[in-house]
């Protein structure tokens, strides 16, 4: 990452359209661009100084600059190295920059390298912050670009009704579950993280199979997810968090292709009890598009037993292509956040009223099913 940014910082100052510009009128145009660049760099440096007041870069000298370029270049592939050097040389030859600009670049690049080295070192010395649920903001920052890529580019998610989620305060999102792997949870979280006004962190509750899986279990905790138990849900809601649940559980996510978009049974209505106990509104969420990411033809009980998983899908690609078969198809997704269902009318004791709980559970289930059917009717195609 550091080398990339470093390359970016250096090659970024070298505009490619420069070569296209005729030499004759470079003076005025290049002076203008130069001024802009200087101003931009100054701005960036001011911002960084404000964030880290005690950071002091090494003193600037041409030799040190070259040494650092060399050091950073070694991290890049050979052909990229040559390209960067070539570009740097043209930039120098053009006499584009005065020493001040180079000092600015020096500062930026040093900062980037130092910051990334610090980040890695701090991971090993334990100097990072987590909350009591284990959320690790630095890890989240590192993971976010990947999910944003899936959200914006791969599945081109269209999210509507995101304004129904309040800026703050406890809220329970209830969504349909689909797609064999829990991508739907990550996309709901990414939708709120990138499109909601307060960019809230969604605390998704996962099944008790997740803690058994190496890496996934640790990562899930770090990005703010936790085990689906009533205690966890109520505690999170009482801390005024935004919680997401998938009441269908394994029955929903492991659905066959022919059963797509038919909601499975909702478990016990635990999620309604959570919402009633914590007096939190429920927002129904429908996810359309995730069902087609894997075309699951059958489920294998033997496979599940052998792999130790709750279900074992046989899809068009899995297990025939091995792990490659787990790459989801790039369908077009729609995530719709419905009107909040407010439960203020009932007292906290209502959580014990099982008739009421199952009624509310059915109501939420029907709402989500209607939202899904509505979206399916409008959807032009699975992929576009």
């Amino acid at each position: 990452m550091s080398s990339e940014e470093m390359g970016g910082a250096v090659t970024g100052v070298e505009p490619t359209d420069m070569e296209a510009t005729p030499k004759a009128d470079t003076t005025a145009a290049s002076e203008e661009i130069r001024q802009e660049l200087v101003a931009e760099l100054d701005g960036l440096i001011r911002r960084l100084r404000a964030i880290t007041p005690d950071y002091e870069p090494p003193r600037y000298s041409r030799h040190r600059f070259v040494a650092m370029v060399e050091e950073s270049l070694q991290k890049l592939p050979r052909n990229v190295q040559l390209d960067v050097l070539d570009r740097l040389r043209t930039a120098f030859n053009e006499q584009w920059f005065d020493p001040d600009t180079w000092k600015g670049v020096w500062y930026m690049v040093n900062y980037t390298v130092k910051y990334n080295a610090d980040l890695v070192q701090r991971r090993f010395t334990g100097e990072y912050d987590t909350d009591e649920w284990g959320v690790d903001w630095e890890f989240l920052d590192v993971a976010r670009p990947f999910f944003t890529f899936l959200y914006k580019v791969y599945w081109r998610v269209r999210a509507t009704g995101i304004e129904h989620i309040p800026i703050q305060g406890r809220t329970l999102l209830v969504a349909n579950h689909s797609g064999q792997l829990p991508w739907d949870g990550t996309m709901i979280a990414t939708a709120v993280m990138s499109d909601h006004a307060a960019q809230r962190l969604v605390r998704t509750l996962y099944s008790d199979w997740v803690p058994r899986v190496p890496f996934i279990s640790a990562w899930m905790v770090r990005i703010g997810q936790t085990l689906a138990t009533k205690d966890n849900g109520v505690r999170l809601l009482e801390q005024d968090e935004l919680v997401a649940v998938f009441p269908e559980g394994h029955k929903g996510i492991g659905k066959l292709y022919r059963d797509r978009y038919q909601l499975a049974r909702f478990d016990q209505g635990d999620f309604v009890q959570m919402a009633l106990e914590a007096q939190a509104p429920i927002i129904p969420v429908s996810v359309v598009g995730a069902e087609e990411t894997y075309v699951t033809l059958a489920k294998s009980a033997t496979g599940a037993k052998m792999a130790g998983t709750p279900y074992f899908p046989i899809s068009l690609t899995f297990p025939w292509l091995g792990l490659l078969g787990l790459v989801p198809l790039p369908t077009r997704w729609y995530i719709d956040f419905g009107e909040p269902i407010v439960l203020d009318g009932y007292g906290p004791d209502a959580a014990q009223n099982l008739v009421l709980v199952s009624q509310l559970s059915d109501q939420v289930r029907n709402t989500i099913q209607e939202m899904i059917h509505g979206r399916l009717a409008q959807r032009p195609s699975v992929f576009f």
Partner: protein
Amino acid sequence: MSEHTTILVTGVTGTWGVRVAARLCKAGGLHVIGLDREPPEKDIEGLDFVQADVRNPLLVELLKAERVDTVCHLEFAETAQPSEAAFDLNVMGTTKVLGACAEAGVRKAVLRSSTAVYGARPSNAAFLTEEHALRGSKRSGTIRDLLEIETFCDGFRQRSPHLMLTTLRFASIVGPTVDTPMTRFLKAPWAPSLLGFDPRMQVIHEDDVVEALAQAILRDVPGPVNVAAEDVLPLNKIRGLASKPPIAVLHLLAYWSQNLLASTPRWGSDASPFEPDYLRYPWVADLRRMREELSFVPHYTAEDTLHEFAEWQHAAPFQVGPFSTARDEERLRDQIEQRQRDRSQEAVTGPSAEDGGDHE
């Protein structure tokens, strides 16, 4: 509590008995009897020592004769492997002590347990309350014995409602001078964590253990209470803070080698201080009762505890104090402020009645 309040501490030569007894003697205004098979190495000022085994049937007579109000039962032998001798001392010892307490009309008994009795399971909630089922591992001697004791206590509470029974379930104890599974894990560079698992964990500073026990003796809180530092840290962070090298193995390998070691008793004690499950799944306790009913706030956060532990680790080879000047200064400043506060409070209320004015 008055001068006539008599407190009996069992296991008074053990790690915790010695400190709790010293802490109670220092508090003043209490008659503290210490019980153990051997006299303590260093005299504790104000301690009334009685030499006897906790399983001695005459314990009832002692409790009656001394009109003991509270028994703090700290006689406990930690063992990695389940052992009959330890079981006899730990479990049979506890049943006998509690039986004697009930018969002698003792008002209250305080025990030390561990949050490991909840067990590390994938289905564990993120914060286990005291009501949670005890599903700890029966393969570790200490945890097995604690489970037996806790189960016995459950039944005992029903049968003898007159005896108030407090069990403090401590998280992993960490400190410069104690030897616990967690300190062993952090000290042994080879003891691996599990690849791809980073469970949230709790620790508690050794000084806070003593304070919490003292608090439980001085305050009446029936039932089990979880005690841990307030911050919950991922295992990797704990490892980092304690400067332990990041070594991890595949969890399947850890389970396999555990079985192998367990089948060869001679090596059993060399096994990793934690069973693989305890490094894989969360076993974090909820601290509401500690805060609200025991009104106990640990002095050290988990981060401070581990920083201090790491400093001692670094200092040990040179036989110099465990030193960070900054931390030491901070601590001294705290103490000075605390003393000033105490003095100003005393000036307002006058010497408090409970310590009889012979403080200092």
